[in-house]
């Protein structure tokens, strides 16, 4: 069986089945929805960081832009929610295109410039002068499209597509070429890889994923402020979850989100007073002992982790 099909059947299909069944047995649907959102975002970070080495500290910029893309489509064009979600993805891609010059930077410079870009987008959206378009800092209320069930289904579909793309990256020459660029761009170019094109594609797909996630998030929550959808917590969580599991794999970000976001909520529900202590110790332990993420426990033993 080709590894692409095997990965789709053994990883993506069971995960989709789980998220299809879980709302029937667990009432806190918003928690499940947030799991799906963070799985999408962690995989989005995986695409850009895991496969190209660009750490997007301002990844939330695409997410927030997508949320406002959704809101503008609904408020001004009375677009149906699914169409508005697609538009949110387009907004993410357009912003990605606008920020493409950032790819000339690398390492910490790229990370900081990306963070600054996200803040710039936040202040642009929250500018009172744009109140007639974005509602500025005064918040958006999209009561007409509010439908948590459909929004949840939309999020699961986006997750499936995102995972499908990551499976493709893991099993295609395109993904291999990206990793070659990440390891040594000059050598990859010498071997005939179009470095700029590769990076831009990965960057735009990553932006598309976050834009779609932002759109579906706006659909679900329906009342939000710029601070809600441009919160740096989204970037931080997505990056930490992806790193915790291990990037450049399909399973790493999934494991990272399930374990770390699971623990996050477990602590939040049971012992919130120890929250920062437990979470901090956990992340420090990871950085000190498993810098390549949890999957490195398996890869060190020579096991192949998809």
């Amino acid at each position: 069986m080709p590894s692409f099909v095997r990965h789709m059947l053994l990883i993506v299909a069971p995960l989709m089945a789980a998220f299809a069944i879980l709302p029937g047995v667990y009432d806190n649907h918003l928690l499940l929805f947030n799991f799906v959102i963070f799985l999408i975002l962690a995989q989005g970070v995986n695409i850009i960081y895991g496969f190209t080495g660009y750490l997007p500290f301002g990844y939330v910029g695409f997410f927030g832009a997508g949320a406002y893309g959704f809101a503008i489509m609904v408020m001004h064009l009375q677009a149906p929610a699914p169409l508005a979600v697609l538009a949110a993805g387009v907004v993410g891609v357009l912003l990605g295109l606008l920020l493409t010059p950032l790819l000339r930077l690398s390492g910490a410079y790229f990370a900081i410039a990306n963070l600054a870009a996200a803040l710039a987008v936040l202040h642009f959206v929250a500018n009172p002068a744009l109140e007639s378009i974005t509602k500025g800092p005064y918040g958006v209320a999209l009561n007409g499209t509010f439908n948590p069930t459909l929004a949840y289904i939309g999020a699961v579909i986006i997750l499936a597509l995102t995972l499908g793309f990551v499976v493709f990256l893991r099993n295609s020459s395109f993904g291999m070429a990206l990793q070659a660029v990440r390891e040594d761009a000059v050598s990859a170019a010498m071997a005939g890889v179009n470095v700029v094109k590769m990076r831009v594609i990965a960057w735009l797909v990553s932006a598309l994923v976050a834009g779609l996630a932002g759109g579906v998030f706006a659909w679900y929550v329906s009342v939000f402020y710029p601070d809600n959808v441009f919160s740096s917590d989204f970037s931080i969580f997505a990056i930490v979850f992806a790193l915790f599991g291990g990037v450049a794999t399909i399973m790493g970000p999934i494991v990272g989100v399930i374990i770390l976001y699971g623990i996050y909520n477990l602590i939040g529900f049971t012992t919130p007073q120890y929250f920062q202590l437990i979470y901090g110790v956990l992340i420090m332990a990871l950085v000190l002992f498993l810098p390549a993420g949890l999957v490195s426990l398996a890869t060190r033993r020579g096991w192949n982790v998809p």
Partner: protein
Amino acid sequence: MLRKAITAFGLGAVMGMALASPVLAADAPAEIKLGTLYASSGRYASISMPVHAGLKLWVEQKNAEGGVYVKAFDKKIPIKLVAYDDQSNTATASTLYNQLITQDKVDLFVADSGSVLTAPAVTIARDHKMFLFDQTGTGGSFFSKDNPYIALMSDPVSTIWPKPIADFLTKDGPALGIKRVAILYSTNEFTGTQANSLRKFIKDANAPIEIVYDQGVPTETTNYTVILNNIRAAKPDAVIHLGYAPNDIAFLRNVQDVGIKFNMLFCIYPGLETELLEKNVGAKGLQHVFTYVPPSEMAYPVNFGMNIADYKKAWDKKYADGKIEFGFNAVAGYTTALVIEKTLSVATSLDQMELRKAVFSLSGNLKTLDGTFALDETGGQIGELTPLGQLELNDHGHIKFVAIYPHEVATGKPVYPKP
């Protein structure tokens, strides 16, 4: 025949009462679950913790008395406070709000403080048909005629908050010589909405007042030097600065550093977080600054709950370490609690729409240490308005409040222009 009928009726009534009482007692829950969130860390911790502490103080006080009176069961029932820490994270807050409703099955659903952390609760409450006791989420977008599942407890809705400033400027201002007004605001919901409302109130008043400077700046702004010079160039008689506490601190420090003297200068937080501002700006820097007068300075007559002096005593006893500041937000949390207590004493069941009906029945009648509780038809708070005041120094060089407007609550005259 008649005697038989009366006897039968009497017996029936007695039996009915005998049966009815145990039914009521059996149905009564062992506790009333009150679910809420607080932020112990992050951007909103400083406003959330005092509000939560006020609510917690009330829960402990009532439970020590055997619980709150619940009319639906005609008895006192203890309150169980189910509170989670959202750490100022809105995604976490969403999950936890949902947890309160779907897993903990709370009877009373209370939001965290501030509009940003209240926003997720508005949608969730509506989705689950739970009535939201909105503590201090003043965002105008929360309140609409088609959403019956929300009411604002402790702060006036942002759209009417600056009414006393606008009324003072348009009614008393011209006689004092105030004709040119500058508005500087931070571009967030809380202060941006107030700026919008202030502008509208001034324009609608048709008074001889001209807005000569009107500028929004990012909430993260910490240096106002250039902006101050721009404002000075516009030659305003009054400068209204609407920002959060860190904005006010930076702004007032810059005013001192640059050495500009405005005839009238208004800032929000010298009134709401006086201790913090005095610590960072100094008493001298706050002298003659116009601000909102918090309920802790007004001693409103109450018809329910503790008055401000008793509440302060109870607060000092419970939070003797002084780690949580007593002020505007501390009063807000306790005010929410009082509205809840009164609601339970009026509502005939714990059905969410009945709770709403009971809350609305209090409008205009409930007078707490925060002023008169009054709601508009959408659930927005239109009572509990904070009067306009001015900070002066007492004989010992400490800050004191002088209420200026409305006249019926005024304790002094404005010092204008600033000497």
